[in-house]
């Protein structure tokens, strides 16, 4: 079983890491790059596949050379065998379409065709959720999205998945798809390891990967535009049909609430607090305002 996980480096939007200027614009240079948080679920699905069925997992990303660390992090978490970085100035400023085209070309250039390609649901910066499906469109494979659990029947060459369909009522669909297949994992994805043998394999993989992740560059292949034989007009900014008409910074919260500070030893103050919250504890009153 051969799997590829697609991952992306994104600004670390966590409190304390992210940096905005006065106008509320992201300061990219001051904000560290991390692995897209949703990709964690794609990595978990790939790891489950490797643990249960053996074989090889590769991690692929398109981005600047600085993404190497993101790939290293991915290698550590998915116990990947090898890493691919598609990196070239010509690929810069690509929209999801041009990115999908580039990634699909990377996958097709791999020595052996993978059986499954995994992608996470949405990136933390773009939030479109397009890149996975568009990469798949270029590959022309079946795709299963919103996957929350996964099982592969190697003999039959079939992937069975449960997918979460959100709506008025959330539904869980069970679907089958022939391999090779493209899988987009849902943030609700949970791997399961109910066999001791699987957990033992998982432990073996973790031990094996420690050395490999330290020397991850030995397992890294970097392909540029020429090596991928991509027409510059179809990739990067030139190959991106998306037009960004304008960017509006997210407005600040309209107002700040008045806060009254009460210390626990202030008996009078605490009594007032209890009086204020008492109606809500019985469910007799609804909170006023927002």
């Amino acid at each position, binding site marked *: 079983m051969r799997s590829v996980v697609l991952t992306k480096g994104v600004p670390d939007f966590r409190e304390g890491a992210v940096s905005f200027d006065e106008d509320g614009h992201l300061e990219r240079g001051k904000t560290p790059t991390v692995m897209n948080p949703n990709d964690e679920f794609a990595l978990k699905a790939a790891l489950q596949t490797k643990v249960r069925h053996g074989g090889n997992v590769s991690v692929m990303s398109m981005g600047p050379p600085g993404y190497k660390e993101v790939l290293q992090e991915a290698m550590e978490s998915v116990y990947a065998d090898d890493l691919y970085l598609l990196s070239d100035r010509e690929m810069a400023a690509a929209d999801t379409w041009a990115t999908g085209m580039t990634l699909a070309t990377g996958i097709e250039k791999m020595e052996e065709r993978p059986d499954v390609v995994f992608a996470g649901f949405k990136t933390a910066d773009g939030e479109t959720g397009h890149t996975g499906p568009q990469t798949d469109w270029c590959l022309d494979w079946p795709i299963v999205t919103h996957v929350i659990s996964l099982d592969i029947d190697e003999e039959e060459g079939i992937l069975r998945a449960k997918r979460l369909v959100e709506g008025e009522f959330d539904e869980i669909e069970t679907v089958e798809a022939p391999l090779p297949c493209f899988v987009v994992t849902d943030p609700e994805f949970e791997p399961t390891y*109910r*066999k*001791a*043998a699987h*957990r*033992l394999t998982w*432990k*073996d993989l973790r031990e094996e990967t420690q050395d490999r992740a330290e020397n991850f560059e030995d397992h890294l292949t970097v392909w540029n535009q020429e090596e991928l034989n991509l027409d510059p007009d179809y990739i990067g900014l030139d190959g991106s049909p998306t037009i960004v008409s304008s960017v509006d910074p997210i407005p600040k919260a309209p107002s700040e609430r008045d806060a009254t500070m009460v210390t626990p030893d202030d008996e009078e103050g605490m009594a007032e607090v209890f009086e204020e919250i008492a109606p809500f504890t019985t469910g007799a009153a609804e909170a006023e305002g927002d």
Partner: protein
Amino acid sequence: MTDDREHYEAVVVGAGPGGAAAAATLANNDVETLVLERGTEAGSKNVSGGLIYAEESAPYTVDDLFPGFREAASERPVTENYIHALADDKVRTLDLGDIHHHDTEWADAVLRRRMDSWLAERVHEMTRETGGGLLTDVRVNGLLREDGHIVGVTCDELDPIGADMVVAADGVNSELARDAGMMDWEEPEEWFQGVKAVVQMTPEEVDERFDIDDDEGEAHLFSGDLFEGVRGGGFLYTNRDSLSIGTVFHLDSIAAQQAEPHELLDNLLTHPLLARWIDADYHEREYSAKLVPDSKKVAHPSPHKDRLVLVGDAAGQMQAQGPIIKGMNHAVTAGALAAEAFVEAKSRGKPGKAGSIYEKKLKNSGTMSKLRPTSYRATAPVSENGVVAGVTDALARSPLGSVGLTVADKLGLVEWGFNSPLVLKTLPDIRTAYATVPEVLAKATGEVITETSEVQPPDLAERIGDLTYDTDVGNPHIEVQDNSWEASGTAVTACPVSALDFGGGCYREETVKANGGEERVVSLDTQPCVECGTCAVVADTHWEHPHGGKGVEYREG
């Protein structure tokens, strides 16, 4: 559906010394062995005093099975061994060197997290070669049966697993031994409860305060009037960079006297005698507790059923007779013998016979007679009889007793008695042996202690606050079946992380209005639970372990 059920030749439940010894011996004989440990790392659920012995007469020792054990996994060897009899401001110290060295190849102080995790690494490497391996974070919750026969184990985290032999090395609160109906949690008389503080001290301070070299260590035992008449005693062992200081009491005595175990530990920690070793800079690295089976009463004489064998604490194999406290060494022996039995049974084509071969080996190796000495069984019905015990105690306290002990001491008979394997095996479990004799001895022959203690131990809230928990949210592993004070009130005092007038522990006293009156009941919050099992014995509870990896995590153990 048994077709895709996993199967291993042997499944070992618990990665303490008993499980590790069983697994290593099985692996050495190419038996496909899976080891399942519920802690997040081996040792994270384990507590011991703790000294581990290598007995000259034992068929297996831990360093036979795990070369390099002493250098890598133990703390300091015990090179000096004393018991201190205490009364008022007096102490009479006796050298226990003879009994300590009796049948002892070596004895080392250990901390269980370090020791067990080291063993587990070796075990995983060895068992992996056989196609098995060691997994942590897996709680085995019961026995898998087919047609009423034990054929494997069931787990919280894994699908049922079949095995030709199941080794229950799952400790004093063995869920497997109970599932099999082989052990119970009914009688407080059958158990001891130990609590321990691991006290921070640099290696240089240990060397200096005990006047020892860095390759030497000491073991001190304490008995007498400092424990308010509760039957039991205290201990102090030197580790590399800490001290293990603790107390062990008969659980029935703790229950009957409504004693608070943490306060009894504080009595020891703040005793003037200990001021020579610990001072105002007292820093407690960890507070821990554990039940200890009394092998004289509960060591299972036939610890097997179908494909199940019990080893170590799970089988009640903990020898505690006066100053002799040996558990881990017997667990190692039992584990290795159980494995040996399986290998023999398998070679005869009858793996199902492993249990009865194991029983024979326990007997023939002399292990069983150490655990259940015939001399104790012969004398206990008389010496532990209430009337006889009362007379014995009064006699020891009388002027005659005092003179007798003084004369005996002058003749060297007291030290001889404490160092005599036969006397100790026969020692009755009554107050006289634990408290009265040491007290009278100290009063009559002791030296005055001149030091004063400056130690201020942390309170219970701080002790609980310093422990690490991964709370099994939404899954309280203990349920109180009968919350009346009469049925379960003892848990409030006997639980080592609960106390009367303390709301931050497991068990609390509450008064509720019922039937027009007020009722005294107990309420339970399992979050601070240290999984010792005390409440399972002294209260009416349904007691299970938390899921794999959940609950308390000991860093020292």
